[in-house]
């Protein structure tokens, strides 16, 4: 009687993509914020080329985390508006499937912004961010953000102060993950020996996987009253 997990996940992702293509409420806001953010950092660090090169991995990840926060809030607010989250919960589908569908939708949106950011930063900061390992690090990092962000946004979206609560709840939890992403990116960009940045990259993937398993298990308790 339960709808298969994969069917539910695919239905939610395609619904989110269709709604986004039509309304352009998520990616455009995240992309605009990300663009402004890297421009501001670029101008602020303009006079000091060394500092700019030193800061580029930090700028990338700070921009990505704040852009993602905007997207997660909006994505879950769409489910809350008109009470549609209740309609999802009424369906004979596992809560983990609802979570996985929302998570993958959020991941796709943040990844689009992340991948668009890399060539822009390459042009603005004069460093080659269009490297396969940087792209892989960005993908792992954004997957981790999307996992925790989707879970926490489901909780905070039910409160009045959701715009402020999500960063307050998410940033302390994501901080070790964020620092690992910065370390891996810095190592790759700085041309450090592979052993130096492969460890944080592996840790990034492992933490993202742990986040995923935990969130799949916890989601039911978050959405059930």
């Amino acid at each position, binding site marked *: 009687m339960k*709808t298969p997990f994969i069917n539910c996940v695919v239905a939610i992702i395609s619904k989110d993509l269709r709604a986004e293509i039509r309304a352009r409420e998520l990616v455009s806001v995240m992309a605009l914020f990300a663009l402004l953010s890297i421009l501001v950092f670029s101008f602020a660090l303009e006079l000091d080329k060394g500092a700019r090169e030193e800061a580029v991995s930090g700028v990338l990840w700070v921009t990505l985390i704040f852009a993602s926060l905007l997207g997660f809030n909006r994505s879950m607010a769409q489910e809350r508006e*008109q*009470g549609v989250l209740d309609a999802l*919960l009424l*369906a004979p*589908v596992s809560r983990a499937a609802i979570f996985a569908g929302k998570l993958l939708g959020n991941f796709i949106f943040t990844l689009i912004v992340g991948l668009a950011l890399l060539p822009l930063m390459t042009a603005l900061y004069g460093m080659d961010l269009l490297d396969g390992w940087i792209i892989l690090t960005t993908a792992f990092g954004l997957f981790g953000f999307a996992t925790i962000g989707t879970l926490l946004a489901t909780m905070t979206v039910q409160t009045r102060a959701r715009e402020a609560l999500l960063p307050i709840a998410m940033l302390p939890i994501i901080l070790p993950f964020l620092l690992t992403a910065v370390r891996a990116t810095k190592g790759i960009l700085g041309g450090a020996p592979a052993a130096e940045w492969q460890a944080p990259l592996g840790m990034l993937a492992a933490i993202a996987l742990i986040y995923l398993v935990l969130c799949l298990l916890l989601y039911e308790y978050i959405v059930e*009253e």
Partner: protein
Amino acid sequence: MNEAPAIIEAEQLSKAYGDLPVLRGIDFTVRRGEFVALLGANGSGKSTLLRLLSGLSKPTAGAIRIGGWEMPREAMAVRARIGLVAHQPLLYENLTARENLDFFGKLYGIDRNERERRINDLLRSVGLSKRADSRARTFSRGMKQRLSLARASLHQPHVLLLDEPYSGLDQAAIERLDEMLAAASGAGRTIIMSTHQLARIPPVAERALVLARGKIGYDDAILSRDMTEIYRSASA
């Protein structure tokens, strides 16, 4: 008198939000195919009761069985057999009427051909065929309510729960909703519909259940269309 077997059984059902009790140990049974008007003043616990029956909320104490399945332990089996029309339309504003129904049809595991057939039938029966490809955002309150009823009926549920479905509707939309509820009742669905307006008890409703301060104040057949005295004494 409906002699069909019970489809909904509630025993000593209680619900509290923190220290605030909303339902205080209520017992009732609804038989298959019955149309029950759930009455009560604002804040009497009608919406809470419907949320408990739909599985969206868990009771603080007591038991609910729907179609023999125990809630919330066997909620998955119950969900496939329940449709809910809530205060809010539970629709995606950026999707069209057809896309909304198609999405929920997928969640209920209805296969493609059957889904298309049911969507076309439902859109026709709720009078939205011509607006099937318009976004829900562009719909009036009455149109959203009709689409919401189509969404709740898509998986052909045994039990239909409606929470104040008439609120915000104009006279034409009310008459249309009455017709749709009569059709659903005629098709053998068990219906529980909450309202705080006595004038809005649909003609097909056969039983009234009046909630007052978290208890059942009246539970019997609707003897006449004028329920005012019964409602007053039950709510007192």
